[in-house]
């Protein structure tokens, strides 16, 4: 068994670009999924009954489906439904966003619910309206509770971007496996792929730990 690790170096440009795509996908997904998740959570909690049910159905659906299936489904079904010819990247982004929005909606809902009733009552006793109470008393407290979970969701999302490789989005997993197929350097490329994910993911995981320690909720 002869190993040739230079393959990794030779294809470094492709790998770097692919890593960039992975990071971009993560950022873009969160940029969509955080505000959308908050909106869906608010709808679940405060909208009128039919809308509440719809929002709940959406959340329950996407929390109970494998993401890889959603990716495939988005790739084949979305173009037909929307009539748009979406690039694999856009499709992947859509699938990821649909999935993470559902998780964030649940996170925000739990966060908003976890603030004691007395807080709202105290705010309203001061004369605040419901919206004011929400904005000035509930949401700031909820954000504190929600931040550690969002950070953890971010790290999961970073790993989940690897799943859009199945529809040939040129992120890290896809490109690494392409190079493997072209060069037949299986062990080297797969190990390099794992190593790059590790190098990027490990510090993120530690950062999440720090955030969770810092924002630990004590009542």
């Amino acid at each position: 068994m002869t190993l040739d690790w230079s393959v990794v170096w030779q294809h470094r440009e492709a790998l770097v670009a692919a890593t960039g795509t992975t990071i971009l996908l993560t950022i873009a997904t969160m940029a969509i999924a955080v505000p959308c998740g908050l909106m869906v959570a608010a709808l679940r909690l405060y909208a009128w009954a039919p809308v509440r049910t719809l929002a709940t159905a959406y959340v329950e659906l996407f929390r109970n489906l494998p993401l890889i299936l959603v990716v495939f489904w988005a790739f084949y079904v979305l173009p037909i439904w929307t009539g748009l010819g979406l690039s694999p990247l856009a499709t992947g982004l859509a699938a990821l966003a649909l999935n993470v929005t559902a998780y964030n909606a649940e996170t925000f809902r739990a966060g908003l619910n976890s603030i004691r009733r007395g807080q709202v009552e105290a705010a309203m006793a001061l004369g605040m309206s419901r919206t004011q109470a929400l904005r000035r008393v509930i949401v700031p407290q909820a954000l504190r509770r929600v931040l550690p979970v969002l950070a953890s969701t971010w790290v999961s999302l970073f790993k989940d971007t690897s799943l859009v490789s199945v529809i040939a989005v040129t992120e890290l997993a896809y490109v690494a496996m392409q190079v493997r197929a072209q060069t037949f350097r299986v062990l080297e490329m797969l190990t390099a792929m794992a190593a790059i994910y590790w190098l990027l993911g490990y510090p993120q995981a530690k950062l999440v730990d720090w955030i969770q320690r810092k924002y630990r909720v004590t009542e």
Partner: protein
Amino acid sequence: MDFSVITDHWRFLASGVLVTLALSALSGVTSIAAGFVVALARMYGPRWLRPIVILYIDSMRAIPVLVVLVWTFFALPIVGGITMAPFWAALVGLTVHLAAYSAEIFRAGIESVRPGQTRAALALGMSRAQILRRIVLPQAVVRMLPAFGSFLSVTIKDTAIASVIAVPEFMRQSETVQGQTFQPIEVYTFAMVVYFLLLFPVTRGVDLVYRRVAHLGRS
């Protein structure tokens, strides 16, 4: 939409469901058992073992399960000389990845039991081992139920990723049928229904059980 494609291939698809169930059950069991050992090693093991265990757990937080599966199936044979059929490679890969997750659930559960409980048991004259076995673990198990509900859900979803290394589970079988019949909408919609019906009861069921026994874990 023409769902006859489903009925035409129902035996093929059903075999996929069986494999999904088998792989989920097996990897669930092995990763919970392994995770328990890892958690005990981390909390009660010798000092030098701790950083190794933590490195393992944090690495699994950084590396996607897709990467672990692909590496186990393609790269491990080169390094370790053992070739495994896709199903067993998937079992090994899933266990290694999921054990880190379950180890953290165990640790959080055990640490969440009030220290006063340990003190009360010590005051009666119990040994540390007795306290863990008779007082802390029974309460911790109850407290961990919701987290393990999620864990089971994640395990089932991760088996779908095993389709990437050609394990003939349900996702893979669906892909094959879709590839032959060119009816992705019907096939993947059906797949979504099946997975939802698998996953939704798991978390709901655990929730129901938990609500019944939660008082046994509250001290």
